[in-house]
């Protein structure tokens, strides 16, 4: 099987290289209208088919590695180092991306899969897809070169293979790790597709904005995957690392957030290009940056450039990524300089108080957030270069610099949709802003009344602002829904709920977007709760109790257990609230036999108000009693609920609007129907996003 896998990778490389070279040659011939013995169209078609075949070759290689994991083929070095016989089945599957070579193979496979779909759907625009396919093949070649020559996943061990493997990193032996990396990679890799379309459209001086329509769904799906990946990672950190938090501003976490920020900015500003033919330069660079940041993220994870909890994935292939990053940047800059006259805006901004301006500010803040995170991530490296020593840029720095930027983004999320395209009148501003402003002020007063003191420390100031602004944004979103639904209710005679549903169906993109915004506000509310986290630690004996917030924990038992994969120590704690037992928790510490590493299994009782987060910190060697650390983390559940709402909103936005579906049919309607009232439905319902 290792030989089969290696051969498949070599074949995939050859096919991708052919797709790149033949595709590039054919497109060049088409561009200069040259006629050769083989027509460029036919050559381009062979390149497309070779690209499709590369998907099958890469899939075969990925299958070979998974097969080696499931059959305990420890002659393969990668399997020896990332699996063992006692490892449960799902984690053997996860071994595919638990190490350097495997995760690169996952990259290559996902890229080939995206390429496969893109090449199958080439009829949407044959020439533009040919450009995108060729660019995609270039990226494929890079990853397949890595897999064939720098980080081969099928390398064999010297001499006789050991009877058992070294096992999987314990931190990765958690159900979410089976889905978190693939989600994140689907996001990272997925941005290659809009990048390829954007670069291709620029290279061929593609007329109009159709390439944006073609890539809109790609971008949204990719963004959704990345969002899920980022938050699954946060949830994994919360559930496994056992320090009571979900985001540590670790460089690799930051690496996943940066392309998300630029990708989100792109999703917003691309609407300006669609609606008004504006910000074309900006959009092209946003998607270029998003792709470059995806590669940078992989570089940060792999190269050891910055120290991280993700150090398990480090190796010496950083130089390959530097070279690739530089090459991509050169190609982007060169193409942009050559074709920049093609990117002139059709319209100009007419007013500072307009939807266009709000998009501009929104983009600015997204990019400022991205720059801040990049600056914080790379500053230790810069510091070492300039002053000879590394400094740590950790949570306190980000909390002071990045959180205010995030809060201004939250505020803008409420303001932007209330402004009209082109220009907003003072009257409409007054009318649209009065309710959100009242909600913001009322919430601030209510918070003060219930005892929140924002001057207490930095965290409480942030939470105070976040809660108040969140109330305003929710009011703004709700008023948008209610206003539209009310008009539809009057027009159609339906009840308000049916009218709201119809409203969403008629402009899924706009109202799906609002649902996403609502989800983000809910996430902010969850994040703001962290200002009130509490924790306590205690050594516990049988029947001994400890108190945190409204909960009392009583130790019922503490014991040890063993199985072929790991030994464990755990405590059994009954949790009481107001004298009534609410649950039983069993925080655990595991010692994995194969890897000789320790891992924490958090016990968490989550409610909408707070999480009772309990960890088994260890055992006192003198008394042999467990040491239990308990966190009371308010509102954490709202973060995950918010993510769920974001997912729903994105899915809604992906569904075609009812008016879009019906419009071809309407076009075919007889001319007499045009005698109907001109405005049979509210214009806002058919308006922009």
């Amino acid at each position: 099987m290792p030989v089969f896998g290696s051969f498949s990778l070599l074949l995939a490389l050859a096919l991708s290289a052919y797709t790149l070279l033949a595709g590039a040659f054919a497109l060049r011939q088409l561009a200069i209208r040259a006629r050769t013995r083989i027509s460029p169209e036919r050559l381009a078609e062979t390149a497309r088919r070779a690209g499709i075949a590369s998907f099958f070759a890469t899939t075969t290689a990925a299958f070979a590695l998974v097969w080696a994991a499931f059959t305990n083929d420890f002659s393969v070095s990668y399997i020896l180092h990332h699996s063992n016989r006692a490892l449960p089945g799902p984690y053997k599957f996860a071994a595919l991306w638990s190490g350097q070579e495997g995760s690169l193979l996952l990259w290559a496979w996902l890229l080939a899969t995206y390429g496969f779909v893109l090449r199958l759907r080439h009829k949407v625009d044959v020439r533009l897809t040919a450009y995108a396919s060729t660019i995609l093949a270039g990226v494929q070649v890079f990853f397949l070169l890595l897999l064939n020559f720098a980080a081969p996943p099928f390398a064999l061990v010297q001499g006789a293979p050991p009877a058992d493997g070294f096992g999987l990193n314990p931190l990765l032996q958690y159900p979410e790790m089976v889905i978190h990396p693939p989600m994140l990679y689907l996001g990272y890799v997925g941005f290659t597709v809009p990048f390829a379309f954007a670069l291709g459209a620029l290279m061929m001086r593609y007329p109009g904005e159709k390439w944006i329509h073609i890539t809109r769904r790609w971008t949204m799906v990719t963004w959704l995957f990345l969002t899920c990946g980022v938050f699954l990672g946060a949830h994994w950190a919360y559930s496994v690392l056992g320090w009571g938090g979900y985001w540590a501003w670790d460089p690799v976490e930051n690496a996943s957030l940066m392309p998300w920020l630029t990708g989100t900015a792109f999703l917003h500003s691309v609407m300006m290009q669609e609606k008004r033919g504006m910000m074309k330069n900006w959009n092209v660079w946003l998607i270029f940056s998003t792709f470059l940041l995806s590669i940078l993220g992989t570089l940060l994870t792999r190269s050891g450039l910055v120290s991280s909890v993700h150090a398990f994935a480090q190796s010496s292939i950083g130089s390959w990524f530097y070279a690739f990053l530089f090459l991509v940047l050169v190609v982007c800059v060169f193409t942009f300089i050559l074709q920049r006259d093609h990117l002139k805006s059709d319209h100009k901004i007419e007013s500072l108080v307009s939807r266009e301006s709000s998009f501009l500010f929104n983009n600015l803040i997204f990019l400022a957030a991205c720059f801040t995170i990049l600056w914080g991530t790379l500053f230790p490296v810069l510091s070492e270069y300039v002053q000879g020593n590394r400094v740590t840029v950790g949570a306190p720095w980000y909390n002071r610099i990045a959180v205010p930027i995030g809060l201004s983004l939250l505020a803008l999320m409420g303001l932007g949709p209330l402004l009209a395209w082109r220009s907003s009148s003072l009257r409409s501003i007054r009318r649209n802003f009065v309710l959100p402003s009242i909600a913001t002020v009322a919430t601030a007063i209510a918070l003060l009344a219930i005892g929140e003191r924002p001057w207490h420390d930095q965290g409480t100031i942030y939470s105070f602002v976040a809660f108040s602004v969140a109330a305003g944004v929710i009011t703004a979103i709700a008023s948008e829904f209610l206003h539209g639904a009310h008009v539809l209710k009057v027009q159609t005679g339906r009840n308000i709920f049916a009218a709201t549903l119809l409203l969403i169906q008629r402009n899924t993109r706009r109202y799906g977007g609002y649902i996403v915004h609502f989800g983000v506000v809910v996430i902010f509310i969850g994040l703001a709760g962290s200002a009130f986290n509490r924790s306590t630690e205690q050594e516990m004996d049988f029947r001994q109790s400890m108190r945190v917030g409204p909960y009392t924990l009583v130790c019922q038992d503490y014991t040890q257990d063993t199985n072929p994969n790991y030994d464990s120590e755990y405590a059994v704690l009954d949790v009481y609230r107001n004298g009534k037992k609410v649950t039983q928790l069993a925080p655990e510490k595991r010692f994995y036999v194969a890897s000789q590493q320790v891992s924490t299994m958090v016990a968490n009782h989550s409610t909408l108000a707070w999480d009772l987060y309990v960890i088994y910190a260890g055992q006192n060697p003198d008394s042999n009693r467990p040491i239990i650390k308990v966190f009371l983390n308010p509102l954490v559940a709202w973060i995950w609920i918010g993510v769920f709402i974001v997912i729903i909103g994105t899915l809604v936005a992906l569904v075609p609007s009812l008016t879009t579906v019906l419009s071809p049919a309407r076009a075919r309607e007889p001319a007499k129907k045009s005698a109907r009232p001109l405005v049979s439905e509210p214009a806002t319902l058919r308006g922009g996003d």
Partner: protein
Amino acid sequence: MRLNIKPPRHPERSEGPALFHHARKPWHYIHVLLIAAIVVFGAHASDTTNGPRYQKLSHAIMCPCGCNQLLGECNHVGCPDSDKMRSHLAASIDHGDDDTTIFRAFQDQYGPTALAAPMFTRFNQFSWWVPPIVLLLGIGAVFFVVRRWRPRAVAMPAPASDPHTLVLEQRIRRETGGDSL
């Protein structure tokens, strides 16, 4: 009861006798009240490790054991560094050292990576100033772009008014109650 009052940075400006010598002036009554408040709140934080200052500082220092966690969050029983560092921090607070002194001491003893965020010293200041400056420059650039674009847009000839379109626009405004299309 052990009081935990931070010593003044400029003792010459706040010596006891001088303070009470001028205590008849109204603002000095306020001064005395403030000191009384500090004494009361200082007494509240007599247990150093549960005090807010300890919590704040322990979340500004990294545990150097390689766990990449803040000192206040390091959860490893038997961690070779965190217990020692926590004791050091508690002792420094009890001794009355100010934040900068404590941070410098930790930096000297455990290396420049001991602090969770760079101090405001020499090159490290750039870490703090660059992002806000970039944001301000960006805001300035947006204003500049919008102002540069606006006159041109105004100068453009208005499209010929089509009576049919005007009627349609008026009707849309009337039926939707505004211009937020």
